[in-house]
């Protein structure tokens, strides 16, 4: 984390980490740097010559004019158009808490605390998808969009931008953050209560229910089930039970959490098809659905992810047999082993099975920064003091950073960290 930024936040509440001397020293130097950066006023007296005064005035005017614009005041993602391309908009802290809190990539989460705000850049793939979302005939079956691109090119951030857009329109958000975690980071494994040849991850399912509940709390109040769900002989959810109650049941009886997810998703599909609300299904790293988990069967084989009841249910959301929704996925190369990362294109990552399942989908490339975007991003980093070294603010420094990062957003972020 940048020392000066920390320092700025904790100058009053002196909370410098005293146990690391090196950091302390760095803090002191940063303090000096910070002091140096206070606005300087010209001690020079203005010349009496009219010509010189005029020159000074026009120079300062030109400088103001040349200042790069990297931020837009338009914080409503539904109103973002081509005009805002390459500019950062601020996501309100309530929205961050409601929509993204638990699902953001750790680096961006850290960045929010460092920058003391959550900003997303309005980029071309998101604008393209807004156009598709705005012009789609929702009587037709769910179309599937696939974001693909190199590692660190901003697929996930584009997805968040679109989630924000749809949440603003009061859509139900079915967001699956990084299902690849289910493959090897499960807490408990049990045989599904619903069908014996499927595997439940009860804690992961209840985590997801919680995530879903926070994202759509306001909408869920009005939605009720359309059929009876029987969990055990005694426990059941009768027709007309509010979905919040269903979620509560899943959270309290973790054993049935995975089945609750199935029931919930079914209700969403059925009721969306009845035109009650619109749904955005956003799945990150969808290629994990066709990988193997690290769970072993009795015959020591690995259980394929398709056998997980969670994956089974979310795959149903990606089928085009319901209407009034949009399915949006990303494919990510990072879950592949090192020797299986030849390319980042959808068919390669999804494999034959995955491609056949999702076909026809619309691949949307998330490219690396364009010239405009990269300069806007650098300006933003300078504004947020992520770039502090005076040399990093010069044209030469910027050029070097751009060259070193190859305009890859993630690489640029990391590259700027020590500057």
């Amino acid at each position, binding site marked *: 984390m940048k020392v000066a930024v920390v320092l700025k936040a904790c100058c009053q509440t002196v909370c410098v980490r005293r146990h690391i001397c090196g950091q302390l020293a760095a803090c002191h130097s940063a303090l000096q740097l910070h002091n140096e950066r206070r606005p300087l006023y010209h001690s020079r007296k203005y010349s009496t010559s009219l010509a010189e005064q005029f020159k000074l005035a026009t120079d300062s005017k030109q400088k103001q004019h040349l200042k790069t614009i990297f931020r837009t005041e338009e914080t409503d993602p539904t109103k973002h158009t081509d005009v805002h391309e390459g500019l950062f908009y601020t996501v309100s802290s309530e929205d961050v808490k409601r929509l993204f809190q638990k699902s953001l990539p750790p680096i961006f989460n850290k960045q929010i605390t460092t920058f003391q705000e959550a900003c997303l850049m309005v980029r071309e793939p998101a*604008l*393209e998808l807004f*156009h*598709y979302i705005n*012009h*789609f*005939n929702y*009587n*037709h*079956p769910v*179309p599937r969009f696939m974001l693909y691109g190199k590692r660190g090119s901003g697929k996930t951030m584009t997805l968040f931008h679109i989630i924000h857009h749809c949440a603003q329109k009061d859509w139900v958000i079915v967001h699956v953050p990084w299902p690849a975690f289910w493959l090897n980071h499960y807490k408990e494994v049990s045989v599904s209560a619903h069908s014996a040849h499927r595997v439940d991850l009860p804690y992961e399912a209840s985590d997801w229910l919680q995530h879903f509940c926070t994202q759509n709390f306001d909408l869920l109040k009005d939605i009720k089930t359309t059929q009876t769900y029987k969990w055990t002989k005694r426990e059941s959810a009768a027709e007309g039970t509010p979905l919040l109650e269903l979620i509560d049941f899943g959270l309290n009886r973790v054993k049935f959490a995975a089945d609750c997810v199935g029931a919930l998703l079914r209700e969403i599909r059925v009721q969306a098809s009845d035109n009650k609300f619109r749904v955005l299904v956003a799945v990150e790293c969808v290629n994990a659905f066709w990988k193997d988990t690290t769970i072993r069967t009795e015959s020591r084989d690995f259980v394929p992810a398709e056998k997980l009841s969670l994956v089974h249910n979310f795959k149903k959301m990606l089928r*085009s*047999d319901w*209407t009034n929704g949009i399915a949006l996925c990303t494919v990510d190369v990072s879950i592949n082993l090192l020797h299986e990362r030849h*390319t980042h*294109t*959808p*068919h*390669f990552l999804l494999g034959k099975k995955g491609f*056949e399942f999702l*076909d*026809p*989908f*619309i*691949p*949307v*490339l998330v490219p690396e920064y364009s010239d405009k975007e990269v300069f806007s991003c650098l300006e933003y980093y300078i504004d947020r003091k992520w770039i502090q070294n005076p040399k990093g603010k010069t044209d030469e420094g910027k050029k070097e950073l751009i060259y070193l990062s190859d305009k890859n957003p993630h690489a640029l972020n990391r590259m700027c960290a020590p500057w």
Partner: protein
Amino acid sequence: MSVLHKKQAQTITDDQQDEEFRTFEIPGLKAKEERKKMRRRTKKVHPPRHLRMRTDQEWINVWPTASTFKWSAVPFPVRQGFVKTQTENEGVIPGKYANAELMKIPNFLHLTPGHIKKHCQAIKKFCTAWPRGLETDESCEKYFPLEVVESDYCVSGPSIRDPRARQVTVKVKLSKLDLDYHARDKMLRLVGNKYNHETDELTLTTDRCPLKKQNHDYAMYLLTALYHESWAREPWEAEKTEADMERYFWDQSKSKSGIISLLTRIKNIDKTSHSEPDARLIPYLPEDVTEETLLLLPELQTYKEAVEDLINEGENHTTVMNYKNSVKKLLNIKTPPS
């Protein structure tokens, strides 16, 4: 010196103890007779031969046959070898003088254009005229599609037999054989790695029989058998499933049935939704949607080609964009104005 002196003195005392009085010679007191130093006479070395060579000399006379590299006879500078560090030999690759590396490797100093010309002149009297009409490589390939490579070995040794002489290599371009799609595919599966995809060449090498003639016959038999076997259609070939396919066929894939059911569903929806403006319906779908009518649609044909290209050709920017555009057209999704 003193030790030697002592020993001498002792022997004298033993033999002539009573005859003579032993005198003590102080070393270095008497002038010693100086010995003449023998100098080995070094042979006078002539300057290397290459310094005396004329620029217009006949190289064939200097280097008439194959021989090991002789530094003194080669009139040009040449370096060979490996320098491990910058300190070794001052970082310079060793020159030709006393360079064992140059002697190890074969050289072609006996095969210069001059040599070849002379060889050709010498064997010209044994040659016949080149057949007319075969001047170009293309015409050779056209009239003689089969290429047979055999070698004879001539050595001066106790036996004139050479085991390598029995090898026969037969090369033929698959495009020259009369094969249909099935036969060509079967041929490729039968020959395996003996087919070169880049040159479209099938290479059969035989060396299992003791004689060249036998091996040649066997190669011809192999080629004939392969050709006829490729054309034969066995009953079990009908059991070929999608996994056995050599390339992706959209017509036999799950994708096809999925698309047809999707389009049928969309058409049914479009029929019932009267309130929607026409622009949002899918315009190209016919009134009666059946598999046959759908498959004839140009939109579906372009989509099919795009999917087949994507999978068979591999994913690159063009194929992915083609796929994207074809799907967008298929589902009537409008491209944003740029």
